[in-house]
């Protein structure tokens, strides 16, 4: 996925300004920024919930602006707010998503079984989502996002509302997905502790992209201090 000169205004206020980056195939990318930095807006644009105003998003040769269907076929998304139907079972939620991607019920059941097995959720397949804990719900959302085998997985603050252990487990799980299935991941967060030194870090602050490089390299370039200090230094520089 390549973002070229993305700009977005909401009620005349600039939310994103000239944001450009390229996501490397099969790699984990952390989109780091405080609340209000523009992360959700960027996700809205990448998932077509918001219409592009300026710039373009491309997946390979395809443009989201001109070939939205072709691009959306290869994107899986996990939203910040719960997007599961709590009254329906886990498999019913997944089959709904499969149908939205044009899969036949048979194909959907097959893929649903495979993904639930991968996420170790098979025994929960018939359980209403309402009865699952927060960590399991997130994994169901990931299973759903992976159902159509996307090349790019977008996760918007997926650990919101989870306890420390669940957060760590979810992070490890998504990195495993990256390694095993060569999925490109963009993980938005405002929690620096969720980022590993080897992750590619995109720092978004007040709608502008301040950095786009591996976490350890970013720290070295700013004097070998921690990522927290690096982030603080970057945002101070931006404000100056």
């Amino acid at each position, binding site marked *: 996925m390549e973002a070229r000169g993305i700009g977005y205004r909401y009620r005349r206020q600039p939310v994103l300004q000239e944001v450009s980056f390229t996501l490397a195939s099969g790699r984990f990318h952390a989109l780091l920024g405080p609340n209000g930095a523009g992360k959700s807006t960027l996700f809205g644009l990448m998932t077509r919930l*918001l219409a592009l105003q300026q710039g373009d998003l491309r997946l390979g040769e395809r443009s989201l602006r001109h070939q939205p269907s072709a691009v959306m076929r290869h994107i899986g998304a996990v939203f910040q707010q719960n*997007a599961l139907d709590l*009254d329906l079972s886990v498999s019913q939620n997944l089959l709904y998503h499969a149908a939205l991607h044009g899969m036949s019920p048979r194909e959907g059941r097959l893929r649903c079984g495979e993904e639930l097995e991968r996420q170790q959720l098979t025994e929960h397949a018939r359980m209403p989502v309402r009865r699952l804990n927060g960590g399991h719900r997130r994994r169901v959302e990931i299973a759903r996002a992976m159902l159509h085998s996307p090349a790019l997985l977008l996760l918007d603050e997926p650990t919101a509302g989870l306890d420390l252990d669940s957060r760590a487990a979810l992070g490890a799980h998504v990195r495993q997905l990256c390694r095993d299935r060569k999925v490109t991941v963009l993980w938005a967060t405002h929690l620096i502790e969720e980022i590993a030194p080897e992750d590619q870090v995109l720092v978004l602050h007040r709608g502008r992209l301040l950095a786009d490089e591996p976490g350890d390299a970013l720290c070295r370039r700013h004097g070998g201090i921690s990522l927290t200090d690096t982030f603080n230094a970057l945002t101070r520089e931006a404000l100056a």
Partner: protein
Amino acid sequence: MTPRDYWYCFLGVQKREWLRFWQQRTRFASALVRPLLWLVVFAAGFRMVLGVSIIPPYVTYITYETYIVPGLCGMIILFNSMQGALSMVYDRELGSMRVLLTSPLPRPFLLLTKLLAMGSVSVIQVYVFLLIARWGVGVRPPLEGYLAVLPALLLAALMLGALGLLIATWVKQLENFAGVMNFVIFPMFFLSSALYPLWRMQEASPWIYQMCLLNPFTHAVELLRFALYLRWNGEAIAITLGVTLVLSALAIGGFRPQRTRLLGAHLG
């Protein structure tokens, strides 16, 4: 995308709506209390003060209960459509809508499919109501009428669903159901032929009569009434169909997720 993809998507959205209907059947059953109260209590009191002459599509004198059944069918669809449209962009359906809108299929197709799915659930409720009216109150349209009214019910559901979506997306002041009830549902329902024939309204006030004629709900109710009694009403069909097309085009073409809560309370 192939026609097969569209078909499976269409089926999947319908199935999800029916599953939700089944999961929440007690809520849907309680939604029938409102029209049944009108049919049993309101109609019992009102038939003493309102005489209904022989007017098409009826060929004989009818009871007041018989007269208001099509209007109450319209009422079920009206309430459901407005409530459904609000929940699509503001509360209960937000998660499902996010998933729906990230499908690779074209957005107009997805929204139309969703409106039809919500409409089909309203239609099930209408049929339950019609059965209760038949066996409980003795309102007995011809049996073939139950089949003939099906496309009319779906058309009315689509029209009112599109209106609901249009209002929910564009009129911020009406984002809660009480506002919609006071400013949309009640005026549409009372300024229509649902509860009283329009000739009565014409006698009472020509001005209100004109407003009733301009109200698309009037024509949807007449369409249901005529279809239920196996009579053709070209004017009602043409107006309901025309309004449905215009409202659907406006609601679907003008749908903007940023005017809803689909991305959360604020953009950040």
